């Protein structure tokens, strides 16, 4: 009983409670009937998530501790799959390569779309055209983009070396050299994916009140000072979110190394996902592939948790 309860209100509540079972069940039935379609749709979504998302995740984790041949029952092997993985010299190589790709992607793939968005934001003419041009590569199927760039990179008659040769420039080996293969893949990935990131940055930039720039200009701020003191602080949240998403996405890089280098030369572009693919679909060792997926899942889980925390705090 609270301090404001009087004997009369308590009595009234008691009498309500006496008839509560029938009324509350009525209310429950009514609410159920009113929201039945919603519950039905929710139920459908839950079933689909359970079957196509949660079940495979749980099964994937279990597979990491099993040996399967898809004929007999799975055999529990404890941490044997992880042992196999740690004994594979490519395990460390794959993680290092993936981190290298992620690092390059953060430097190039993170900065370039932001810079492009800033430039697009400043444009006064043909804005729709340039936005379309920037977004166009996103519409290309990833495999087509990779094959197109494979030709660009051809050290012989490829586009880049032909152009460089015409002006007496150097003739890099691009994908064929351990020192340039990874950065070449990052360039492809950046080109193919920057459209979406650019549009998100652009949207964020357009929410910055114009008065801030006017005030900065009145104070005599240079372009760089305006960028540093107005643009970046005002878009800090979006930048941080995109950074985390970028880390999560780039650590799962697969298409570019799979199509363009096959992990070569000399394993310099074997990434975590490519190694998982090899274990699963080349060596048909789904247990070890799952073990590696579990490790990747944990690492990405940390970044995803950071992303969720950030988005809930700011949201």
């Amino acid at each position, binding site marked *: 009983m609270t301090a404001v309860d009087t004997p009369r209100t308590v009595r009234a509540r008691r009498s309500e409670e006496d008839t509560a079972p029938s009324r509350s069940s009525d209310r429950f039935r009514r609410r159920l*009937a009113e929201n*039945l*379609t919603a*519950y*039905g749709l929710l*139920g*459908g979504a839950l*079933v*689909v998530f359970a*079957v196509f998302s949660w079940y495979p995740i749980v099964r994937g984790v279990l597979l990491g501790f099993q040996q399967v*041949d*898809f*004929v*007999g029952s799975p055999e529990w092997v404890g941490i044997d799959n992880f042992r*196999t993985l740690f*004994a*594979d*010299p490519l395990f460390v190589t794959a993680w290092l390569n993936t981190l290298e790709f992620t690092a390059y992607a953060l430097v190039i793939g993170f900065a370039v779309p932001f810079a492009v968005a800033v430039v697009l934001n400043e444009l006064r003419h043909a804005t729709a055209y340039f936005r379309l041009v920037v977004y166009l590569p996103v519409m290309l199927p990833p495999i087509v983009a990779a094959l197109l760039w494979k030709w660009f990179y*051809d*050290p*012989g*008659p*490829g586009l880049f070396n032909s152009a460089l040769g015409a002006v007496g420039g150097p003739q890099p*080996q691009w*994908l*064929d*050299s*351990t020192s340039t293969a990874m950065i070449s893949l990052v360039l492809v990935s950046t080109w193919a994916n920057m459209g979406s990131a650019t549009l998100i940055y652009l949207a964020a930039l357009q929410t910055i009140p114009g008065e801030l720039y006017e005030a900065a200009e009145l104070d005599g701020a240079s372009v760089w000072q305006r960028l540093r003191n107005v643009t970046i602080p005002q878009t800090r949240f979006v930048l941080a979110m995109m950074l985390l998403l970028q880390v999560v996405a780039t650590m799962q890089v697969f298409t570019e190394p799979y199509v363009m*280098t*096959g*992990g*070569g*030369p*000399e*394993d310099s572009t074997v990434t975590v996902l490519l190694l998982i693919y*090899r274990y*699963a*679909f*080349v*060596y*048909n060792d*789904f247990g070890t592939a799952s073990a590696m997926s579990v490790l990747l899942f944990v690492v990405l889980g940390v970044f995803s948790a950071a992303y969720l925390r950030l988005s809930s705090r700011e949201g």
Partner: protein
Amino acid sequence: MTMSTKLRRTVVLTLAAGLAVATASCSSDDPDGAADSGGKVAITVNGRPPATQAFERRVFDADVAEFEATHPDIDVQPKEGFMDPKTFAAKLAGGQLEDVYYVYFTDPAAIIARRQAADITEAVKELPSVGDLQPDLLKIFTGPDGKLYGLPTANYSMGLLYNRTLFTKAGLDPDAPPRTWAEVRTAARKISALGDGTVGFADLSKNNQGGWHLTAEIYSTGGDVVTKDGDKYRAAFNTPATRELLQTFKDMRWTDNSMGSKQLLEIPDVQRMMGAGKLGMYIAAPDNVPTLVKQFEGRYEDYGLAPMPGGTGTLIGGEGYMLNPKASPAKIKAGLTWLQWKFLDPARYETVIKKFVADKLPVGLDTPPTPDIWTGAGAATVQALKTQYANIPVENFRAFTEGSRTVRGKIEPVNAQQVYAILDGVMQGVLTNEDADPQQLLDAAQKKVDAAVATVK
């Protein structure tokens, strides 16, 4: 709409969604084998050529119809597709793997180790021609337990495929192809000197294909890739002969510049180069020749095939069929009857050969319809048919055919795909790094291969 109608509709919709999902995730196993009505045994078989290969598909479909007419108790349900490692395990797990499924010679060892094929040791005893199959090929389908898990239907060993036209242009004798790696180097230098992007010799180095080819090339020097030492396997390729071979590749790539500037090549890349008349030589099996002619509208006269340079050994490749481990004995029996009738009856070959000749498809190579899988009487029959019906310039391929009798064919190493992945790195090192040290590459690869095969029993 009343509340109850709405309720009923929602419940029905939800149930339908649930049922659809449940159905999709269920397999469609048919363990008893007699799926068809009328007591027929229904078997699914893959290997039906796609619609783009009109002739092959027509022959296949006609064969199915003829087989069913002569075997009224068996219903053959053909499916498109060959061996695709990417979908194999999923099909098996989902109960969608065909009862009789196609494999390359690179597959059986791993499939047997994972118990993903049926034991047919007893069942094949009823087949009349199995005894005439080459024992080396049967070994590919034999497990460590001595049991048989499949049957070969075609056999290709690798050799040196070369462009006769470019040989002539470069002042080389197309009837005297290179017999050693040193001769390959000399010929490659001359061919690449033709300029205009012409590549003398190309080799693969991507997606395990580099390791696969290097294995054949190591065999060609008399070497081995993996050997059994007591009860353990270990790498066996780190030898002076392999180092010398790699040094030759390195010299060709960087000193002579006769291997082209673009590396990380796969089979379709070199086929394209050869088809476009821009490549002098590459290592290939005879089945590459019809591919080049069909896909690039080439002429058989343009190509020649020689035994592996070095001539000591080569890697055996080929194809065959295995049976689903979940298939019932009745299905296994029916499946083997189909394989015997379709692929393993030399007396039937002539009918198929005539269809090839009528459609101007090549006859005369060691490829279907005259596969090199027989010994004894079977081999004699096939040889006679090949000579009688040859419609391509067989003399261009004679060096290979005759040479293959003396070059020892060897099967691939244990844990082949892992080993190939590691050897890919060796090829990539030599072909993409001017400063690569072949010995260092071999030392590093040896350690990795030792680790990869250490657990194989």
